[in-house]
């Protein structure tokens, strides 16, 4: 494998996480009918473009896609961490800009009643950041 392509595997893994997270979010919202809260929307806004940006980067073996993915991954990660803090009551509900579509701290934001959706989101964004970091190092190497 040429050295220039060594970043492909971590980039693919990051893209796959974004793809699965996007499919999962759409499944929860459109199929299961769970209305996304405001914070969920901000995380969606950060997650959905990652599928396109990283996907195109993979098709063209374009390492620069990492650069364009960074801001989305960081923004989404920040939102997800904040959402987790809201969910577990670290940040009080009064500070949260939640309008229609359910409270962001609601117990309903759980998959199968066990895993909180904001935690899944935080794990996904953390994974994407880590993989992008690895891919970036291999591009420079």
């Amino acid at each position: 494998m040429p050295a220039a392509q060594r970043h492909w595997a971590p980039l693919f893994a990051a893209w796959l996480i974004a793809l699965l997270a996007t499919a999962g979010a759409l499944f929860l919202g459109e199929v299961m009918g769970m209305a996304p809260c405001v914070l969920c929307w901000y995380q969606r806004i950060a997650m959905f473009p990652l599928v396109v940006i990283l996907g195109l980067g993979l098709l063209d073996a374009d390492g620069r896609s990492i650069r364009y993915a960074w801001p989305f991954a960081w923004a989404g990660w920040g939102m997800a961490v904040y959402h987790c803090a809201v969910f577990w009551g670290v940040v009080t509900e009064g500070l949260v800009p939640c309008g229609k579509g359910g409270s962001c701290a609601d117990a309903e934001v759980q998959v199968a009643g066990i895993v909180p959706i904001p935690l899944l989101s935080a794990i996904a964004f953390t994974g994407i950041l880590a993989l992008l970091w690895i891919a970036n190092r291999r591009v420079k190497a």
Partner: protein
Amino acid sequence: MKKQWIVVASVVAVVVAFIAGAIVFKGRETQQVSQAAQSNSDALVRASSPVFGIPAAKVTIVEFFDPACETCRAFYPLVKTIVNSSFGQVRLVVRHAPLHEGSDTAVKILEAARLQGQYWPAVERALAGQPRWAAHGNARPELIWDLIADLGLDMAKARADADSPAVAQLLAQDIADMKALKVDRTPGFFVNGTPLRDFGEAQLRALVDQEIRKVKAP
């Protein structure tokens, strides 16, 4: 294998899994809703529910209706046409499903108008003026009073009725039945007890036609 194909194959796999999951989930949900409709069939129509059309009609459309819901507004003329063009075979029973902000107040005003025999005119006025009083985030259902002011109602009595325990009781019954039947969005249609799962105009017409054929040829 070329790397591009791995990407394409992954997308296809996820899309296929998504569709398969959606079909399984919707199928299970349909089963649950049908079961809820069967085991709670007495919750579909109450003696106190408003009826449009001939009460003895053999086909009954039950509509869970929210006066603040845009889709309910869009469906109203259609449902009315179905009843009117059925030659007495179809009737409409309205159940109130106040899922929007301010809908509960709107329903109480409509119920108060019903006590004076002006339910359907009041519904039509409320729907016509819906964009004004049911704006999202700024619901002002009390504006309906102005919309129905010229229906010849005893307005003092109507305002008292709207706040009465009897009307509150009717609304509470509608909400309880809505929950028992797992209606979580409006309009929610049942035709002779069969829930309309695949939502749409044509689908509603088809379901009604199917039930008409059933009662014609037993």
